[in-house]
């Protein structure tokens, strides 16, 4: 359910016929180096070092000696945009963090929320994006329909209360120390034919969102295709600047599926194709954001009103508490 690096099996054939079989995690630096060197046409004669036998040996070759690489699963490069490295700039390619929780709600709860979404057509407004001057309509950037203040509704509490049960575990999964909650902000969105939301991240200097939680719901059999969530790898450059990479992880919207990721992750809602054009065939999502409070508030209650999440409980204060098996 959490993002873990898959392994990639490589068969690297060298000039002269030598063939080396190598297994690497998909986020291995050597994998990036290998493909970056191959993609830089004409071949840069860089020195490559590839681990053999799980790192017990190493194969050192010049990039120009590599004839072919067969990988399983396939590693695909967009050759029009070869992987390049700005001269003199150190950077790190980081895979996005995310967790998927399927069957997030009970079947009855799911049906209740879907019925609510289907009945709320008149409440949806055109989605806007935040700018320095407030919210504005930018159709080239975001096209969908939204119920902005869904968080104030009774139905949102159904989702919110369950989310709070998961909150400590999700925070730990992402290595984020538990934080006092300020608010659980929530929107209900509908993506119809051709609608999308381009690459963005949910946090910002004035937006204390820490975790983004997207819950999918739609009528079945589904009346749309596409509408996937893309979580982009992040290029973190020296000096702290960040930008989305060309590579990404795709998450399919499934009914009753919750996808949670740190709000700083670059993500994109891909265009949905909805041939009928009917509102009921939209891909619906309830997006919630757990916001960090700058000042702890022991009196603030959340969910159905039982949970005081405005402060961090003592058992979550020790960030060094590692999950492990006994030695």
């Amino acid at each position: 359910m959490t993002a873990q690096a898959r392994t990639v099996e490589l068969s690297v054939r060298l000039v002269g016929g030598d063939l080396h079989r190598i297994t690497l995690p998909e986020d291995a630096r050597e994998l990036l180096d290998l493909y970056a060197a191959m993609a830089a046409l004409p071949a840069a004669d860089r020195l490559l070092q590839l681990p053999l036998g799980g790192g017990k040996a190493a194969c050192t070759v010049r990039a120009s000696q590599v004839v072919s690489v067969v990988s399983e699963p396939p590693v695909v490069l967009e050759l029009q945009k070869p992987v390049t490295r700005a001269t003199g700039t150190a950077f790190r390619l980081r895979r996005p963090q995310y967790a998927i929780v399927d069957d997030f709600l009970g079947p009855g709860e799911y049906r209740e929320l879907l019925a609510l979404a289907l009945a709320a057509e008149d409440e949806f407004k055109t989605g806007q994006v935040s700018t320095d001057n407030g919210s504005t309509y930018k159709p080239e950037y975001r096209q969908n329909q939204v119920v902005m203040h869904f968080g104030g509704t009774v139905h949102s509490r159904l989702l919110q209360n369950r989310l709070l049960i998961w909150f400590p575990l999700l925070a730990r999964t992402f290595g984020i120390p538990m934080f006092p909650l300020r608010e659980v902000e929530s929107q209900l969105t509908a993506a119809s034919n051709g609608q999308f939301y381009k690459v963005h991240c949910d946090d910002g200097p004035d937006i204390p969102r820490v975790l983004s939680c997207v819950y999918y719901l739609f009528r079945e059999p589904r009346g749309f295709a596409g509408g996937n969530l893309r979580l982009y790898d992040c290029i973190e450059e020296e000096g702290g600047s960040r930008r989305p990479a060309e590579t990404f992880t795709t998450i399919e919207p499934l009914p009753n599926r919750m996808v949670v990721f740190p709000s700083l992750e670059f993500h994109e809602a891909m265009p949905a194709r909805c041939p009928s054009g009917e509102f009921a065939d939209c891909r619906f999502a309830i997006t919630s954001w757990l916001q960090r409070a700058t000042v702890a508030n022991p009196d603030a209650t959340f969910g159905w009103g039982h949970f005081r999440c405005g402060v961090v409980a003592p058992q979550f204060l020790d960030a060094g508490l590692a999950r492990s098996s006994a030695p």
Partner: protein
Amino acid sequence: MIFTVFCTSAHPVDLLAQAPWQAELLEYSWGHVRQPGELVRLVACRPGDTLPSDRLARVVRTTSWSSHPFTGDAYPPYDVAASLLEWLFTERIEGSVLLLAQGSIFRAPVTHEAVRGTAQAMAWDGLPRGDGPFGLGPAFKFLDLCCVDRTLTLPAVTLPLLIHSSDLRRIAPRWLEMMSIIRPETNVGTQGPREDADAIAYAIAAAEAGIVHTVTDFTVGTGAKTGTAPILDYRRPIASARGKTVWDAGTWGGGDVVAAKHAAPGIGREFLTTLAEFAARRKEGADLAFLRPCRHPRVREAKILGQLFLDVPGRSDTVTVDASGAAIWECCDGTRSLAEIHRDVEARFAKPPGSLRDEIAAVIERLSNVGALRLDRV
């Protein structure tokens, strides 16, 4: 694959905290009946708590939910649901989960797997009945706000529970959530919050998830005359034929065991017999479960084409060990218990937990017999 799971707390004052002998006795019975699969001990920890080191069980640290992080309510059953959720989520467990109550040991193996969408558990006659939501009674009116369908029929069950991991993963968060609601909502008047909130919460979560429960006689108590149940519940004191208490889990410190003949005939006598066997083996240190295999320092070894050859001082012949035996040999460094060697070797050969138990024990016994290994007490 059956994961036998028991939940404990690392915090000594918690009700879930167990005396060391209790976990050891369960492990002994689990190994003795050759229960298939893996034995997992979930330990709810607070900052600074140290994990116990078990012989056969894989010990998994989880974060304590008692006191409840959002309500402050101290209620040990929160730890059960929270530990299960954390374990199932982080380890992506796939298979049957046999969840044991405290004070349980095996009499016979549970070998049948759980089918998705169904579960088996012991009957519980304490489920409140009335005219309120879920047929629980008017005191549960508060559930109208936070439960969508209050007409569902609740399964009146309790531990032990045999359930598929995917179903338990679906139930666990709601189980924890419902406990977190029922406890403060029933904390009215002088009675305090309901002590059975965990069982009621489980019933609601299971019903909402659509998991069909079948009542199964998993357990027999020490007061019974006879029984074929595979699990024995020793929480109640054992009495003599005259009704006098001869043994009580709450007061026994792990020392001398009262002779079984002092108990009235029946399951209590059977338990005392098992306890005496366990205590004797524990005292002798004769069971592999209580030992850490350690390579003899003067053994010389050589590896040729995947085979391991051991030159043991005092022996004229050379001991030959195959590749899997060599992997076991490498693990016998005196720091690992048998459970840890199981885990390491099974992970190395990508085998399901528990599947190599017999083979590993056989290799260790053979290497010990030829003088290549020393068996240190844990």
